[in-house]
C-alpha cells in the first residue's frame, strides 16, 4: 500500500481507525485537535461507524471513553497537556478501575509553549497514575504505537497514556498502513465490580495495579520501542527519548552516533536496559523533551553516582523544546547557527482577525470601564486572550479554562468592585458554568461577559457545546432573567450596547452580557462551502 503523508496527529487517528477503535472523544486543544478532526472527516471511519465527538470538556471525554472501554470496545480520548489536568480525576482513577476494551489516552504536550500557558510534561501524569506510557519518535511510530497500545491495554486491562509533543503532532511524513483489524464486539467486564471504586474494592484493585507494575516494566524491557545501540566510545552513554533520538542522530554522518545510545519510547523506564548502559559508560547524557524526568531518576536525590548530564546540570537549557543544535552543543559539537537576526526585525504577535466580533466587544468594554481604574477584567482561554495585547490591553488574567468567572468572584469578595469576567461560549460550557453557579449562590457582585461567536475559535472552529443554550443555562443557574443581556457586537449599535454594559457593571449582583456574532473564520468558511455547493448543483442541473 502507498504511504500516506500524515501529520503525527493524523497518524494516530489513522492508527485508531485501522486498529479497530470504536470511538474517539476529545475537547479541542492545540496541538491535539487534528487527531479527532481527522477521524471526523474520514470516510473510512464513517463507513466503519466509528463514533467521533467533541465533549464539553476533557473530563467528560475521558469518562465517555472509559465507558466505551467498560463495554468492551476500543476507545481513544485526546487532549492537550493542560486538558489532562481537567481530566485528571477520571484519568488517575481509570488506572485503578483498569480497562476492559483497549483504552488509549493521548496527551499532546507543548514544550516551548507555542500555544499554551505552560509546558508540563504528561509523562509525570502517567507515572503518577502508574500507567504504561508510549512516546512515539516519528509519525510511523505514532501509527504503530496505536496498534501496540490497544494490545497492551487489553493484555494488562489498563489504560495506556500516549504522550506526544507539538513537533510530532504538527509535522508530516510518510506512514505505511497495516491491515484493518475488526472492532471488538460488545462485551462486559468479567468481573462486574471491576469499575466500582468503593474503598474495599478500590483497595483490591489498587493492589492489583501495584502487583502489575513489574509486568509493565518487563513489557518496557522487551518493547520494540526501547533498544540499546552499542558503539565504541564509552566515555559517554546517551539516553534519548521520543523525538530527541532524531535530533541526536541528525548530528552525525550517516546517522551513526559514536557513543552507545539507549532509545526509549515506552515507560515505565526499562530498568535493565538503563543499568546496562550505565554500567558500561563513564557518564550519561539524558535527552528528553519536556521535564527532566529520567534525568532526575538517574541522578537521585544525592547524585553520588556517575556524572549525569542534561537539563539539571545546565548541559541543556532547563526549559523549552529540544532541537538538533541544542543536542549538538550538549555533545560539544560546533554550533552551526547562521547569521544573526537583523535588529530591525520586530516581533509580529498573533492578533484578532479582521472582522472579529471580539474587537468591538473589547473596545466597548474598555469604554464602559473607563471611569474605573484598570486591573479588574479576568479573562480566559481562547482567541479573546489576545485582548491582553495592543491595541486593547483589556484583560488582566488568563490562567485556566473557566478561571475568569471564579477569579472575578474571588476578587469581588475581596472588595474589587466592579469585577468583570470575560469568557468564550465554548470555554463557558467547558468549565465556566460551575463557577457561575458559585457566584449566584453567593450573591457575588460580578459581571460576566460571555463572548458568543458560536464556535471553538482558537483551535480552528470546532462545534461549540454552548450553541443556542447560553442564556438558558445562565437562567437555570439562577442569574436573574433581566440581568442576562444579549447584545449585537457591531459599532452601529454602540450607544445601546454601551448603556447596557454600564448598567450591568453597576448592578450589584450577578449579571451576564452576551455579545453574540459568529466567528468571522467560520462565517467565511460556511459561505465558501455554500458557494461551492451552489456551483456543483448548477453543474449537476
Amino acid at each position, binding site marked *: 500500500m502507498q504511504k500516506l503523508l500524515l501529520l503525527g496527529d493524523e497518524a494516530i487517528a489513522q492508527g485508531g481507525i485501522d486498529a479497530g477503535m470504536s470511538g474517539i472523544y476529545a475537547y479541542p486543544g492545540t496541538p491535539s485537535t487534528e487527531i479527532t478532526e481527522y477521524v471526523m472527516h474520514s470516510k473510512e471511519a464513517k463507513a466503519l461507524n466509528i463514533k467521533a465527538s467533541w465533549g464539553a470538556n476533557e473530563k467528560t471525554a475521558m469518562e465517555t471513553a472509559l465507558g466505551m472501554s467498560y463495554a468492551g470496545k476500543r476507545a481513544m480520548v485526546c487532549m492537550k497537556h493542560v486538558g489532562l489536568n481537567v481530566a485528571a480525576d477520571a484519568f488517575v482513577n481509570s488506572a485503578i478501575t483498569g480497562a476492559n476494551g483497549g483504552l488509549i489516552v493521548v496527551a499532546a504536550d507543548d514544550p516551548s509553549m507555542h500555544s499554551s500557558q505552560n509546558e508540563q510534561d504528561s509523562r509525570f501524569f502517567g507515572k503518577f497514575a502508574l500507567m504504561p506510557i508510549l512516546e512515539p519518535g516519528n509519525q510511523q511510530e505514532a501509527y504503530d504505537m496505536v496498534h501496540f497500545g490497544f494490545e497492551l491495554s487489553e493484555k494488562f486491562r489498563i489504560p495506556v497514556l500516549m504522550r506526544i509533543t507539538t513537533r510530532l503532532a504538527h509535522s508530516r511524513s510518510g506512514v505505511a498502513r497495516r491491515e484493518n483489524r475488526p472492532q471488538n464486539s460488545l462485551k462486559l467486564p468479567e468481573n462486574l465490580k471491576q469499575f466500582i471504586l468503593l474503598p474495599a474494592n478500590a483497595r483490591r484493585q489498587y493492589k492489583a495495579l501495584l502487583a502489575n507494575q513489574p509486568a509493565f516494566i518487563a513489557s518496557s524491557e522487551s518493547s520494540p520501542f526501547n533498544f540499546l545501540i552499542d558503539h565504541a566510545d564509552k566515555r559517554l552513554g546517551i539516553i534519548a527519548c521520543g523525538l530527541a533520538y532524531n535530533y541526536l542522530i541528525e548530528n552525525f554522518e550517516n546517522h551513526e552516533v559514536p557513543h552507545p545510545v539507549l532509545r526509549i519510547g515506552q515507560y515505565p523506564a526499562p530498568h535493565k536496559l538503563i543499568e546496562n548502559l550505565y554500567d558500561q559508560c563513564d557518564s550519561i547524557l539524558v535527552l528528553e523533551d519536556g521535564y527532566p524526568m529520567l534525568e532526575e531518576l538517574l541522578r537521585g536525590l544525592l547524585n553520588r553516582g556517575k556524572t549525569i548530564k542534561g537539563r539539571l546540570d545546565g548541559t541543556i537549557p532547563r526549559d523549552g523544546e529540544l532541537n538538533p543544535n541544542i543536542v549538538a552543543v550538549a555533545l560539544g559539537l560546533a554550533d552551526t547557527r547562521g*547569521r544573526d537576526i537583523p535588529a530591525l526585525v520586530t516581533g509580529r504577535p498573533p492578533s484578532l482577525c479582521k472582522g472579529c466580533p471580539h474587537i468591538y466587544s473589547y473596545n466597548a468594554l474598555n469604554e464602559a470601564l473607563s471611569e474605573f481604574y484598570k486591573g479588574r477584567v479576568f479573562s480566559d482561554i481562547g482567541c479573546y486572550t489576545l485582548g491582553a495585547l495592543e491595541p486593547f490591553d483589556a484583560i488582566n488574567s488568563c490562567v485556566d479554562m473557566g478561571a475568569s468567572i471564579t477569579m472575578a468572584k474571588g476578587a469581588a469578595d475581596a472588595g474589587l468592585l466592579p469585577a468583570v469576567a470575560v469568557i468564550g461560549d465554548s470555554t463557558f460550557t467547558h468549565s465556566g458554568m460551575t463557577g457561575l453557579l458559585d457566584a449566584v449562590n453567593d450573591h457575588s457582585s460580578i459581571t460576566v461577559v460571555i463572548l458568543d461567536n458560536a464556535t471553538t475559535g482558537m483551535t480552528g472552529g470546532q462545534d461549540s457545546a454552548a450553541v443556542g443554550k447560553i442564556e438558558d443555562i445562565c437562567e437555570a443557574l439562577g442569574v436573574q432573567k433581566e440581568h442576562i443581556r444579549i447584545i449585537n457586537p457591531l459599532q452601529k449599535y454602540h450607544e445601546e450596547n454601551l448603556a447596557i454594559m454600564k448598567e450591568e457593571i453597576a448592578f450589584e449582583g450577578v449579571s451576564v452580557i452576551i455579545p453574540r456574532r459568529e466567528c468571522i473564520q467560520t462565517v467565511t468558511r460556511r459561505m465558501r462551502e455554500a458557494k461551492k455547493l451552489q456551483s456543483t448543483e448548477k453543474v449537476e442541473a
Partner: protein
Amino acid sequence: MKKDIILAGVGGQGILSIAATIGTAALNAGLHLKQAEVHGMSQRGGDVQSNLRISDREIASDLIPFGKADMIISVEPMESLRYLPMLSPEGWLVTNTKPYINIRNYPEMEKLMAEIQLQPRHIALDADEIARQLGSPKSANMVILGAASPFLGIDYQQLKDAISRIFSKKGEEVVKVNLDALQAGRDEAIRQKAPADNS
C-alpha cells in the same frame, strides 16, 4: 540529494500551499519528506514558518538544524530575515518584497531591503505586483515558488505536474493561472541571476 527549506510568512498568507506543491513534487520524484508546520494561536496574523525537508535518504529530525537550511522561501520581506540563523552561508534567500504591515513598528523598507541585499545569494521580487499583472493577484505564492524553482533540486516539470494535480479540481483556468505565475516567478529569478540549469 538533500534540500532543507524554511518557508516563511504571516499567518493567513498561505505558505502551506507552497509546501504542499513542493511536497507533492518531491513525493512523485520518490524522495523522502518531512514537514513541520505551525498550527494554533500563531496562525492569527502572527509570524509563521514551516520546516520542509526533502532528501533521497531517510530524514531524522523534523526540524532543520540552525545554519543548515539550503533555502529560505518567504512571501514577506521582514519575515524572510527572521530565519537567517537557520540559513547556511551558501544558502539562497528568495523573498517577496511586498510588505505585510499589520504591526505599528514595521521597519523602513529601504533598511529592510539593504539587509536582504547583504545575503550573498538572494532573489527579491514583488510577487504581488507580478501576480497582479498576470490578472491573478491570489497567485503571488506561485510566483514566489517559481522564483525559488531554479534552486530547489526538483525537476521543473515535476513542479508543474504537482500544480496541475493540486489545482485540477478547481478547473483548467485555475491550473493555467498558477502555471503562468510559476513561470513568471522563475523567469524573474533567472533574469536576476540564476544559473538556469533546470536543476
